[in-house]
């Protein structure tokens, strides 16, 4: 440590001597580079000021007393800057700690999402879900029950970040406790509503859309808890209609009934589930219209579901200059044959 200080002293002395000789930009450039080295070695502003004075006293004869004395004042002022600098360093370390804690939490959260491949010949399924920050308030789910029915869901916690993410994991655990017999959309939402109502703050809400596809007869049943309406595409007419069902958001009231709708999916028909992060994407400062999302899907009807959702995400991400304002989830379920 002391050796290092001695060598810093010598370097600074050489630099200052050379600068006083020729006043060159080159010497100043050296000083700028040297400051990085000083910071690397944890040299504080007050030590730097003190070193400057000692070096100066060393190379200049007969320094006026006022000059030397004036450094007392400068030193006193620099102590404050030195403290601010050290505090900054310690806050930066703390920030890195928080960041890595958050990374672990975000990783845990991702493991809550399903990741298995869907192997139902009649189905073409794709989903993309991207958080605005590290943690997501969106949740999606898909699963095949014992009878071979395929369940899908998208939920959106009102709010973002860590609190939203914690509520989201509650939805996941609550869903895990449901039995296959309960996989009827209105029943699922009713029981989730009870869990949410009991377990989260009054000022937090969760919206959700839940649907089940029956491969035997190709009916799709769904219910919504105040969720952003999805879309239903019919290949025969080449039209999109809004996918809506009446129902209150989860967590407001303990006893809520959810309307259940059913649709027949013919080959080529599909349903789209999404979170409001999709419809609230802003392009040039304006919310995009649901119609624009329909257009984006329509341009890609020839692709498979996963490609469609990926491309739409990429396009909207780019249009927003890679700054998502809200968690983004988009899901497509298409009957192939």
């Amino acid at each position, binding site marked *: 440590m002391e050796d290092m200080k001695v060598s810093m002293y010598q370097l600074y002395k050489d630099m200052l001597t050379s600068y006083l000789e020729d006043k060159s930009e080159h010497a100043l450039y050296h000083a700028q580079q040297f400051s990085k080295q000083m910071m690397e070695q944890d040299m504080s502003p007050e030590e730097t000021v*003190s070193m400057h004075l000692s070096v100066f006293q060393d190379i200049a004869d007969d320094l006026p007393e006022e000059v030397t004395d004036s450094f*007392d004042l400068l*030193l006193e002022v620099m102590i404050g800057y030195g*403290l601010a600098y*050290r505090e900054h360093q310690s806050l930066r370390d703390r920030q890195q700690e928080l960041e890595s804690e958050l990374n672990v939490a975000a990783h845990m959260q991702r493991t809550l999402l399903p990741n298995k491949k869907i192997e139902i010949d009649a189905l073409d399924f794709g989903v993309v879900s991207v958080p605005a920050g590290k943690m997501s308030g969106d949740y999606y789910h898909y699963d095949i029950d014992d009878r071979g029915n395929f369940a899908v869901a998208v939920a959106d916690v009102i709010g973002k970040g860590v609190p939203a993410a914690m509520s989201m994991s509650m939805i996941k655990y609550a869903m895990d406790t449901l039995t296959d017999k309960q996989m009827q959309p209105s029943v699922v939402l009713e029981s989730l509503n009870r869990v949410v109502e009991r377990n989260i703050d009054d000022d937090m809400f969760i919206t959700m859309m839940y649907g089940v596809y029956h491969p035997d007869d190709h009916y799709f049943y769904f219910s919504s808890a105040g969720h952003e309406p999805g879309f239903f595409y019919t290949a025969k007419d080449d039209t999109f209609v809004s996918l809506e069902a009446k129902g209150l958001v989860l967590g407001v009231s303990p006893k809520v009934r959810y309307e259940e709708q059913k649709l027949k999916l013919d080959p080529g028909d599909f349903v789209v589930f999404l979170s409001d992060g999709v419809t609230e994407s802003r392009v040039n400062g304006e919310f995009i219209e649901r119609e624009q999302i329909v257009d984006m899907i329509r341009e890609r009807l020839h692709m498979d579901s996963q490609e469609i959702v990926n491309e739409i995400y990429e396009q909207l991400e780019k249009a927003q200059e890679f700054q998502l304002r809200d968690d983004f989830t988009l899901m497509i379920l298409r009957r192939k044959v």
Partner: protein
Amino acid sequence: MQVQTHVDINSEWGIVAARQAGRKLAREIGFGSVDQARITTAISELARNIYLYANQGQIKIEEVSAGGKQGMKIIASDEGPGIKDLRRVMEDGFTTSGGLGAGLPGVKRLMDDFSIESEVEQGTVITAVKWLR
């Protein structure tokens, strides 16, 4: 007999007197100019805290030696309201963001050893030592 000085803090003059006494002793013990300024700043902050939050109290400074090392000890004591949440006041960014200066984390950084005892409604005693290197 090692040097000991008491300064009563009940006005800004007291703060200046404590600084002066601290700087003088630091110089006598042999601290360099940077450490003198650090010790003085620490005394200043401790004395200001007394003045601002407890109205009055005392700064004691003394020469210490242990294990062949020489140093200087500052003891700041008051019978003021005490500190309820010590962990909070020792947190970076807590006091400084309120514009209260270096705060206790700053004093801790300026010195080598630091300890604090505080009892609500009873008062606070802060002890800090700087060792000569």
